[in-house]
C-alpha cells in the first residue's frame, strides 16, 4: 500500500453522520443487477482485452453491475440531487475478472490524493443554511443564483462547503459546478456514467492509446422534475420493474481517444467533446438479483482491477483509489477485492 495514513485519512474524511463503517463510506445505497456485455466488431482494433475480442461477442461476457447513490448515508434519498455510481464487473475466462467503475460526474473533485483529502474535509456535510428571503434577493440583484432550499428532512449537505472550497481552488470547480446541478435520474438506466480516469488501451496492432470510457444509456438520459417534491425510494423498484418478465435495458460503452496536450493524469479536467469516440460495445442488463445483501453489498469493485490490454494511467488519484477501495472493502468485511490483501 502506497501511503497507509493517507488512505485511512481519506476514508475517514468520507465517513459522515448517517453512514456506517459496515457499509461503503460513499455510494452506500445501491442495487445490483446482472447482464452481459458484447463488444463491437471494431473494439479489438483499439483494445485486445478479453472482453473486447470477437469471441466475447458470440456469447457475451457475463457482468455484475451495481448502481448507487453517491451519498455516504444508509438512508435512501433517491430523489435528492446526487452523483450516481455504476460499477461493472466483467467475468472473463479462467476465473479472471475486470472492473470498470464509473459515475454520473464526468470529472473528479481533485487532481491528487492530497488535494482530494483537503477537498473531502472541506466538503463534509454541514448543517443546511437556508438562505433568508433577503439573502436570496441580494443574490438575484448580484446576478447570482441562491443555493437551493434544502429538501424536506434534509438537515446537512455538502453544497456550501464544496462551493466555498471550489471558489478558492480552481481544480475543484468543474466537478463542483457539475455536482451542484446534477439532479436525480428517473432511473439508474437513464443516466450517463463516466469512468473519469484515463486508461491506456493496447490495440490489435500493438498501438497504445490514452482513453476515457463512458456508459451511454440507450434509453436516454432523463432527470426528475426538480420542482416536484423528491421521492425517497424508487430507483431499486424501477430497476426491478424494468428487468422483470425477461425485459432488458442497455448501455453503449463509448471510448474517447485522448490527444497530445490532453491531461492524461488529471481527472479534474474533462477532455473537449470533439475527441474521436469509439463505440466499444453494448451492455445488456437482464436481472435484479434477489440476494442483494450477500451478493452486491459484499462485492468489492476496484477501478485498478484491470486486465491485459488495459493499463492504468499515471493518474495519482486512480492509484490511490486502488488502496482506498481495498481499505474500505476490508473494513466492511466485503468479499475481498483483488487488492485487499486477504485471501478470498
Amino acid at each position, binding site marked *: 500500500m502506497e501511503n497507509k495514513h493517507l488512505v485511512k485519512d481519506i476514508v475517514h474524511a468520507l465517513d459522515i453522520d448517517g453512514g456506517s463503517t459496515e457499509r461503503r463510506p460513499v455510494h452506500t445505497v445501491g442495487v445490483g443487477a446482472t447482464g452481459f456485455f458484447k463488444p463491437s466488431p471494431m473494439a479489438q482494433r483499439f483494445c485486445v482485452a478479453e472482453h473486447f475480442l470477437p469471441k466475447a461477442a458470440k456469447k457475451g461476457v457475463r457482468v455484475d453491475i451495481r448502481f448507487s447513490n453517491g451519498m455516504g448515508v444508509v438512508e435512501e434519498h433517491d430523489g435528492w440531487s446526487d452523483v450516481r455510481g455504476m460499477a461493472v464487473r466483467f467475468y472473463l475466462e479462467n476465473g479472471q475478472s475486470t472492473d470498470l467503475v464509473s459515475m454520473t460526474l464526468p470529472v473528479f473533485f481533485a487532481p491528487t490524493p492530497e488535494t482530494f483529502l483537503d477537498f473531502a474535509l472541506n466538503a463534509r456535510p454541514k448543517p443546511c443554511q437556508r438562505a433568508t428571503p433577503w439573502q436570496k434577493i441580494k443574490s438575484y440583484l448580484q446576478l447570482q443564483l441562491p443555493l437551493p432550499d434544502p429538501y424536506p428532512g434534509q438537515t446537512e449537505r455538502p453544497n456550501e462547503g464544496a462551493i466555498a472550497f471550489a471558489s478558492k481552488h480552481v481544480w475543484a470547480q468543474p466537478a463542483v459546478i457539475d455536482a451542484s446541478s446534477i439532479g436525480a435520474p428517473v432511473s439508474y438506466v437513464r443516466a450517463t456514467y463516466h469512468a473519469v480516469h484515463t486508461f491506456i488501451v493496447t490495440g490489435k496492432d500493438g498501438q497504445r492509446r490514452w482513453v476515457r470510457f463512458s456508459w451511454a444509456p440507450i434509453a436516454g438520459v432523463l432527470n426528475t422534475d426538480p420542482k416536484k417534491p423528491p421521492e425517497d425510494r424508487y430507483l431499486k423498484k424501477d430497476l426491478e420493474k424494468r428487468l422483470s418478465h425477461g425485459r432488458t435495458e442497455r448501455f453503449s460503452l463509448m471510448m474517447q481517444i485522448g490527444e497530445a496536450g490532453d491531461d492524461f493524469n488529471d481527472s479534474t479536467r474533462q477532455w473537449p*467533446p470533439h475527441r474521436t469516440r469509439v463505440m466499444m460495445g453494448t451492455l445488456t442488463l437482464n436481472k435484479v438479483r434477489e440476494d442483494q445483501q450477500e451478493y452486491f453489498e459484499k462485492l468489492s469493485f476496484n477501478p485498478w482491477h484491470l486486465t491485459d490490454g488495459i493499463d492504468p494511467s499515471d493518474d495519482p488519484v486512480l492509484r490511490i483509489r486502488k488502496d482506498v477501495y481495498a481499505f474500505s472493502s476490508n473494513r466492511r468485511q466485503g468479499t475481498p477485492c483483488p487488492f485487499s490483501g486477504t485471501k478470498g
Partner: protein
Amino acid sequence: MSDDSGWLNSYINSLPERGWFQFLSKYVVVPFWVWREGRPKLPGGPRPSPQPSDNTQRMMNLLMPLKDTSPIGRAKAVMALAQNVDEIFAGLDNVGTVHSARFLLVEDYICMISVYDGDFSNYIRDFISTIGSVFDALMHEVEGGDKLYPSEENVEAFIDWVREHDLFQAPDYPFDLFGLQDEQAGRKPNDPPHDLQTLPRSLILQLHANRNISLGGGYRGYPGYSAAQIRRNLGVGW
C-alpha cells in the same frame, strides 16, 4: 428548521419568473453590472488549439448584416449566391477542407454556416483565391462589405472582418468562461480563482457583450476526422 418557510419563501423563489422583477433586472440590475464590471467582447470562431480533433470539423457561424433588409435587398443577396453555383462547387472541390456549408437568410442577416477542417484563415484565404468573385458579389449586399472590395486585394482585412462577424463560441464547459474572460482582459486565467457563484453573472455580462453566440463548439457524430479522410475511407477520392 422548517422545510419550507411559507409563502414569502415561495414568492421569493419565483421572483426570476415574475414580470416586474424581470423588468427591474433588464433595465436596472443588468445595466448596473455592465457599468460596473462589463466584459470585453470575445472573438469569434473556434479558438486555436494544437489538438487534432479540435482542428477537424470546425464550425463557422458567420452573421453578415444585410445592407438592404427589404425583400428586394434580400432577393439581391439570394441572386448573388444563386448565380455562382459553379464557382462554389469549384471552390469546394479544390479547397478540399469543407464538410458542408450553407447560407441562410435570418432576420436582418445573411448567415453562412459551415463546417471545415484546419485553420480558419487558411480556409478563408484559399476560398478568396478560388472564388473571390462570389464573396465580392455577396459583400456588395452586406453592410460594411464595400470597403473589403475586391477581396483579393484585401485578404487580411477580409479575414479580420469574417472573424469579427463569426459568432463567439461559448466554451463547451461552463467553468472555462472565467478563464476566457481573464485572458481577453489581459489577465492570467483563474489567478486568483473566481467565486463559483459569480458564474451566472459572468455569463450574463458576456451575453451582453456578445449578443449572438454559438453554444459551445457543436456536437459531432464522427468527431476527429477530416473531410478528406472521410472521402478517402468512403472510396470517393480526395
